[in-house]
């Protein structure tokens, strides 16, 4: 019984799945029923700005602040060197000025203290 049923089912399946010729004008009707073909459009790819910023934002900020700190440090060091050079030059000038001052005070002292000798006209006060 079961065997007969299986054979019958297989026969029916083969009958139904056999290749059948398409009716006349089927291909034309099918093509006519399809929507018209859309023209392809060019879409520009705009990368999202937020993505790289999110990705490199922190390292870039760190690098920028590090660079800024280095540049500022260099500037401060340079200023300090210039100020030191100025200060040393000024202190040398001060010492030179005091030496000239003392030389001239010494000259005044000598002139005041040396008594006039005979024939030497001097005016001291």
């Amino acid at each position, binding site marked *: 019984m079961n065997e007969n049923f299986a054979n019958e089912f297989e026969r029916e399946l083969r009958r139904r799945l056999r290749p059948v010729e398409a009716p006349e004008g089927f291909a034309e009707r099918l093509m006519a029923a399809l929507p018209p073909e859309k023209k392809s459009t060019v879409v520009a790819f705009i990368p999202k700005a937020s993505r790289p910023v999110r990705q490199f934002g922190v390292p870039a900020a760190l690098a920028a602040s590090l660079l800024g700190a280095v540049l500022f440090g260099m500037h401060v060091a340079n200023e300090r060197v210039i100020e030191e050079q100025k200060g040393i030059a000024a202190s040398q000038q*001060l010492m030179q000025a005091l030496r000239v001052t003392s030389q001239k005070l010494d000259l005044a002292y000598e002139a*005041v203290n040396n008594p006039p000798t005979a024939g030497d006209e001097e005016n001291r006060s």
Partner: protein
Amino acid sequence: MNARVAYVIAALLLAGPTFAQTKGQLQLPEFAALAEKASETVNVTLDANLLRMACRFLNADADPEQAAAKKLCTGLTGIYVRHYTFDTDYAYPKGDIDGVRRQLNAPGWSRIVEARSKKENTNVDVFLLLNGDKAQGLSIIASEPREFTIVNVVGSIDLEQIHELEGKFGVPNLEIETGKKPAPAKPPAPEKTPEKAR
């Protein structure tokens, strides 16, 4: 009305530099012509800022001269020195010196030393700007046949400290604070020490 305002503004603008000048500071000429003729030139212009900076960079621990200078310069607001040495006699115009000397006729300035040596053709004048019993300026005009020097020290000058410079810069004891004249004709003393000065 507008003309009056313009006059006032002009007067203020002209008077500005005069007010800006520190008391005791002399108007020293440029002496550009002298500098060209001179064989040796010392031109020191230290205003209050530069003087402060100079004081900061003096090494008081290593050098007694610098220690004395540091002590002296704290009260000063300016040091101006023009010193020229020439190869020939009297290569400098006397008019330049007289111009500076005239400024020292202003009230407040007192000549404490006037030394004229015809033998050595040396003239030295030492002036002090006194405010009460305090010296606020020191000026020296010294002319020798081949040398010409103007020194202008501005600020509160402690005469005691100038005495302390004795033996350091060769500063002699002028006894300027007592008004006494130095004792005449004494044998050359050995190098003085700061203790002696006090």
